[in-house]
């Protein structure tokens, strides 16, 4: 009996430790490193920063190490308006996009929840399928459409809405279109999951008590769907803040979003400490929403039982 218990313990430990160790090594440790590098100084060396952590240097090496840490990168972030505007722009784009996604995605999710059960799995696949085709491809498809000689201008000119081809690309509008297009499944699916679970007898009860259809939507369906709204909004807002590909391909060269700024600092300027500082500040900015999201996940999984 005790041998069996011991074996079970060992098995349970493996189950917990395997993913734990992997994530600790490849998720947590990297963040610590990012923090450390954000406190380093730029150097023309390989790797391009100082100090380099050297375990063999001993205690005095450690003291040197700490002495060389500097908050220069962070000071740069706060002093140069470029970075501030970049953060603000990212928050703005994320905020507005999330709002658009809600307005566009809710009717779709609601419609999906109301069709007969036979159609629903098909609709879910239909909504998810574009997401499974390459993200890059879909943005590229929009470049196709939005370019000067593209079909959008073609159609608009034929309908006499505009006279000369308009420049849709390299603009904020193009970014919004691309973002809404790419993140729509992330908004629709959590909403649909919550809407689909709403007990239909609740709506019957509302009708029985005198509520016409549109009113029972406001008083019963909408409040009960709020967890889905929150989950979808967070699932979209947080990653959009750090978006890189969409603004890079569809946006203009005026204010860059923070993801682009980070990329430029890292790849073009080879300024790793500043790039790391941008990442740390971004993480700090998003910490509260991320924690909210984590709480939601816990609640929804525990409440679902």
């Amino acid at each position, binding site marked *: 009996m005790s041998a069996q218990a011991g074996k079970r313990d060992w098995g349970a430990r493996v189950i917990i430790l395997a993913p734990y160790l992997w994530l600790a090594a490849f998720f947590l440790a990297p963040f610590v490193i990012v923090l450390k590098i954000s406190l380093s100084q730029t150097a023309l060396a390989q790797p391009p920063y100082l100090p380099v952590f050297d375990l063999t240097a001993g205690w005095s090496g450690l003291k040197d190490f700490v002495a060389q840490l500097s908050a220069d990168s962070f000071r740069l972030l706060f002093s140069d308006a470029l970075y501030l505007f970049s953060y603000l722009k990212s928050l703005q784009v994320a905020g507005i996009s999330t709002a658009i996604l809600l307005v566009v995605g809710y009717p779709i999710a609601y419609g999906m929840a109301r069709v007969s059960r036979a159609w629903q799995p098909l609709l879910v696949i239909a909504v998810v399928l574009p997401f499974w085709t390459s993200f890059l491809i879909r943005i590229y498809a929009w470049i196709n459409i939005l370019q000067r000689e593209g079909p959008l201008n073609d159609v608009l000119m034929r309908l006499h809405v505009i006279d000369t081809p308009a420049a849709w690309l390299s603009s904020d509008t193009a970014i919004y279109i691309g973002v809404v297009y790419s993140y729509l499944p992330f908004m629709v699916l959590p909403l649909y999951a919550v809407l689909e679970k709403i*007990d239909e*007898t*609740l709506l*019957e*009860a*509302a*009708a*029985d*008590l*005198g*509520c*016409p259809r549109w*009113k029972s939507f406001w*008083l*019963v369906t909408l*409040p*009960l769907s709020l967890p889905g709204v929150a989950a979808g909004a967070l699932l979209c807002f947080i990653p959009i803040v750090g978006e890189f590909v969409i603004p890079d391909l569809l946006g203009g060269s005026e204010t860059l979003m923070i993801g682009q700024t980070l990329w430029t600092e890292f790849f073009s300027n080879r300024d790793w400490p500043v790039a790391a500082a941008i990442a740390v500040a971004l993480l700090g900015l998003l910490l509260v929403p991320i924690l909210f999201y984590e709480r939601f996940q816990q609640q929804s999984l525990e409440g679902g039982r």
Partner: protein
Amino acid sequence: MAVGGEAAESRATGEKPPLVRFEAVSKRFGRVTAVEALTLDIAQGEFFALLGPSGCGKTTLLRMLAGFEVPTEGRILLGGEDIVAVQPHRRPINMMFQNYALFPHLTVEGNIAFGLRQENATRADIAERVTEMLALVRLQGLGGRRIGQLSGGQRQRVALARSLVKRPRVLLLDEPLAALDKKLRAETQFELMELQRKLGTTFVIVTHDQEEAMIVADRIALMNHGRLMQVAKPAEIYERPNSRWVADFIGEVTLVEGLISADDAIDSALGQLRVAGIGVAKSGDKAWLALRPEKINMSSERPAGELNALAGTVFEIGYRGDMSIYKVRLADRTLMKVARANVSARGKASFGAGDLVWLSWPPDAGVVLTG
């Protein structure tokens, strides 16, 4: 389906016109017929029960009255007016749902006041009526609780309060006591009856529990396969069932098959049995004698003077505490059910398995059924 003897009694007695009338109502779902050409009256102030096995159509009928299903054919009249085209939220009918359907995002007070808020009642009026309702269902002071914090019995009361607060003309109850344990169910049954008497509202209850229907209802409509089998007061359904199906569905019964031989007798495999009357049946018709277990006497010797007396052996005893049901094997190897109250406090049975006994009953103890 031709039912032997009397026609299915569906008209309400009394001079007043019925409050609710189903007129030749049918409901089909694709190829399945849930309700078949049903005509039924429900009187004002009645506690009416729809009873039957699963799938008999009683819930469908209730939902048509509430407005959640639309009849394929027929009319539904409320106070003389056809309400089939009226949307559920416009009908002066309220329903207490089987799963209660309480709004989880509202408090007790919020749930009860919900219906009143749709009527645009004043804030003071709403508060007053909600307090009144809470007192009526004995939930005073719990107005601020969230639904998740309530027990099953408390939730049931909130559901009841919510459905009554609008003072509907008809209250529909869809298996309201199914989730309660036996003791709570018995208490709630009496509370429902008291409530109905006090308010005078017409209650229509759907249940598959025949005991419940017999206790609470003024009249019962027994349904099977979408049709009415018998509509009558509980005592009448029990004592004078109109068919073998009804006799078998309600309570326990022994059916003895035979041929009518005279105005007061049936010839069966057990000999000639005397009956009090054969109704519209004629001599030579096939008939069944329905005998309720409590109407049969059991004795160790042949009783003198009884016209109907049969010998048998006790085969099995079902002990129920208050009474025991004896299964007695007769000469033709059929079983007859006899019920005896356990009057002896010491729990000693008067008869044991294998005992030879005599069963007897007066001619008017049984009912002759031809269908």
